[in-house]
Structure formats: C-alpha cells, structure tokens
C-alpha cells in the first residue's frame, strides 16, 4: 500500500489535469459486473474494475462450521477475502495474511449490518472473495462482487452495497484510485454505502487528510457509490432477464 520509501514520485496528473489513466478526478475506472457465473455456489458474481478482477461466491444460509460459532437467534456472516498468488506483480505468498484477515473481517461486518440475519437462526452465510488480479481498490471490488453474489443467492438484505475508494493524490482528491495513485498518493479512503439510507457500513483510511477534505472525500465517494449501485442493479437484471421466446438457448447459464 502506501509506498513511503519511494524516492521518485511519478507525475500523477497531466498538464490538462487528467490522471495517469486519462480520467477526470471524479471519474471511475470502467466497471463490468457479471452476476451468477458460478454454478456450484448459491450465488456468485465476477467484477472487472479497471485492472482488478474479483470473483465472489456465496453459500448459505447453511449449517455453521465450526459449530461453536453458531448463534441461536440469527445467522452469522463469515467472509474470506483472499488474493491469488498470481494477482500481483511479484508472486504473493498464498493464503490468508494479516491484511486479508483484516479485510475479511471488515467486509463480514459490513454485510452483517445489511443482511436480515434474524430470518435464519443458527445458520451461516459464507462469502468467499477471490482476487484474481489486483490493481488497487480490491476490497471495494470485493464488496461489490460479494453483494451482487448475495443478491444472486437470494439472501434477504436491506440493500446492495456499492463501495469505492477516494484518495488524496498530489494534494488533490480523486475518486477510485488506481495502482500508481494508491502507491504514491497521500491518502486512501475506501468506503461502502447503503444507498437507501445513505449509511456507510465500511470505512477505512490510510494516510493523512485534512478534516475539510475528509468531508469532501466522503461526498465524492457517496456520489461514486451511487453510480456503481446502478451498475450492480443492471448486472442482476441482466442475469435474470427473460430472453425473448425462440432466442438461442442457455444465455444466462
């Protein structure tokens, strides 16, 4: 993440004020969401967001494993965020590390706050997030993928959870950091929003930001989330769209 020891900070804005990848400061990277690519899981989603590729699969509600985690009055949400060994430039040591454990925990807690867990006592909703290719903002991509997968699994929720990061780069606030901006920027603020209520259920920050900037950053992020929200809904609609009669077979599956 914050690559503090880097000696040379590359130029992060062009003379026209555009970013390294040609985006305006408040522009998202291209986002493509596919709902339901996996058959074995109860629900699934694949998200391609800039150069990120994230697959999410949801199982449940199902029996809790291990049993002692079971709660008698509600379902628990278990999440496993994992980065593939080949997801980054240098091979990552496979398995859960401290970073992915932390991300798993905050994502599980974000979803706990939107899932109607009381409907399924003594069960578990298991969310698996696999990052296949990483390019900054994978936890947000993971939240987006997981939330579409949860909807695909038919799990009752208050709302979908769009998520995006806002960062401070070269003294300016920018939406949806890319890898370069993440590495050489001053701050990174990922967040997940409940669009119906405007509540934020995931927010983390790394780096430094002025208090006034924080307010602006949150506004920017919320606006970004609303755009993502529409794409998430569209992905689910596509998945269950009724093809016209006589159309070629097996479109969705």
């Amino acid at each position, binding site marked *: 993440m914050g690559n503090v020891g880097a000696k040379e900070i590359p130029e992060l804005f062009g003379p026209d004020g555009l970013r390294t990848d040609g985006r305006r400061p408040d522009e998202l990277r291209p986002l493509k969401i596919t709902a339901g690519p996996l058959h074995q899981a*109860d*629900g699934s989603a694949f998200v391609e967001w800039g150069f990120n590729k994230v697959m999410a699969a949801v199982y*449940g*509600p*199902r*029996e809790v494993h291990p049993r002692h985690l079971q709660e*008698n009055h509600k*379902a628990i949400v278990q999440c496993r965020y994992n980065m593939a060994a080949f997801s980054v430039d240098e091979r990552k040591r496979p398995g859960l590390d401290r970073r992915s454990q932390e991300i798993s925990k905050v994502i599980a807690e974000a979803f706990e706050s939107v899932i*109607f867990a009381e409907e*399924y*006592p*003594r*069960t578990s909703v298991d969310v698996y997030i696999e990052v296949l290719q990483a390019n900054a903002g994978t936890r947000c991509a993971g939240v987006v993928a997981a939330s579409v997968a949860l*909807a*695909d*699994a*038919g*799990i*009752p*929720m*208050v*709302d979908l959870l769009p998520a995006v990061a806002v960062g401070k780069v070269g003294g300016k606030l920018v939406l949806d950091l890319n890898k370069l901006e993440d590495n050489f920027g001053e701050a990174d603020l990922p967040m997940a929003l409940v669009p*119906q209520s405007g509540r934020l259920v995931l927010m983390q920050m790394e780096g430094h930001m002025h208090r006034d900037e924080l307010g602006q950053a949150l506004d920017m992020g919320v606006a970004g989330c609303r755009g993502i929200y529409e794409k998430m809904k569209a992905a*689910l609609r596509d998945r*269950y769209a*009724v*093809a016209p*009669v*006589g159309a070629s*077979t*097996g479109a*969705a*599956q």
Partner: protein
Amino acid sequence: MNGRIYASVLGLLSSKPPVVRVVPLSGRYIPKANDVVIGTVTDVQGTFWLLDIGAPRWAPLHMTGTPWKIDFGETGQYLGVKDSVVVAVESIENTGRIGVTMNGDGLGKLEGGTIVTLSPAKIPRLIGRGGSMIQTITRMTGTKVAVGQNGRVWVDGPEEGIRRARECLRIIEEEGQRSGLTARIQEYLDSTEDPDPRGGARPARPRLDSDGSARPEFDGPPGPHPLTRLPETVPEPEPDGPPDEPPPTEY
C-alpha cells in the same frame, strides 16, 4: 420505508392489490410444512438421522418418523450417510429446526436412480399445470420421477430414458423463466423419440404397503417396463387415477 415498499430479495414483483409480493428468483429452499422433499443423509445418530434437504439447516429425521421398528443405536442399519430419502416436512419451529417424517404415502428410501438438483424456484415449471409437464416427461421417457419441492428430482428407468429426462430437466432449469417451455420440451422429446415406444405398456401400480417394510415403489421397475408414475409427489394417491398430481403450486 418513506411510504414506499422495498424488496429484501431479488425477485419478480407480483402486485394484486391489496397484496404486493415478490416471487424470489433464486435462493435456497425455504421449507414449508407439508412439502415433500428429497433429502440426503449427512449424519447418523443413535435415534435420528440428519438430512440435507437443501434448506438452511439440516433436518433431523427421528426414528419414530420412519416405518421401521428400530432400537436405539440401530439407525445406521437402515439408512447410512449418502442414502437418499423422500420425506415430508412436518413442522418448522421458530428456532429454524425442520421436522421431517418418512411416514406417509409415497415417502421412503430411494433405491437406484439418479438425483438431479434444480433451483427450487423452477419446480412449479417442472410440474406444470396440474402435473402436465411432469406427466409428459415421464410418459415420453419411460422413467419414474420423484419431485421434491426442494428442487431435487429423482429419476429412475432405462438408461436412455434417464438421459432424456435429465436433458428435459436441464432445459427447464435454463429456460424455465421463458414462455413456450412446454413446446420446447415437447420438441426435444419428439426429436429424440424412443425407437421402441412403450405406449400403454404400463405395469401394475406399485404396491403401497402400509407397513412400509418394503416400500416397493422405489425398488426399481420389476420388469423391463418402467413405471410411469410419480407417487412421491402425491399427498394421497388415488387408486387408479392419472399419474399423480403434485401438491398445488400457488405461483
């Protein structure tokens, strides 16, 4: 919320004033009392078995809920892990516990055959209006089919018939939301018509022994002729009625 109604699950809106409901398009099987379901044994205990019926929880099948006279600890001799059974959902407790029973007509252990899993939301389409779809499939493929409301479908019969019935199930699973499904199935079945049609060669009805010592309807076809019946989906079987109708499907 704010005078508006929001759905908590993904589904189709059906609004018949004053009722608004969302028909879910996906999700696990949510058990209802009196549903007939197909379960697989996942655990054997001294007095009961735990069944995976595709629901959020495993369902305990107590030995008193079976037609067998079992002593404590003998449960494993009757049903082992991975055996499949047709059971009826008796009760859902507010703890989420699902009570099931194997006492009842058409319930029992499944022998032979194969189990295909569909999404539970597709089951009404598989059965069709008044059982028309399922009747077409069993008749044209010469198979026996047991349909569980939990999306599991047991198919037995001649190899070729099973293959064709499975293909029908696949079509229903993939195209079940479209209109013209019956025509599509008919078209498939016609195009793969059995070269040796067995029209009218229905064998005697399987006996429904009430002592349940041998539930013969699951013991595979006695002769070369397949049974074109699906007794498992009937609450109460009529003596010689048409192939059984499924429980009413309120969709």
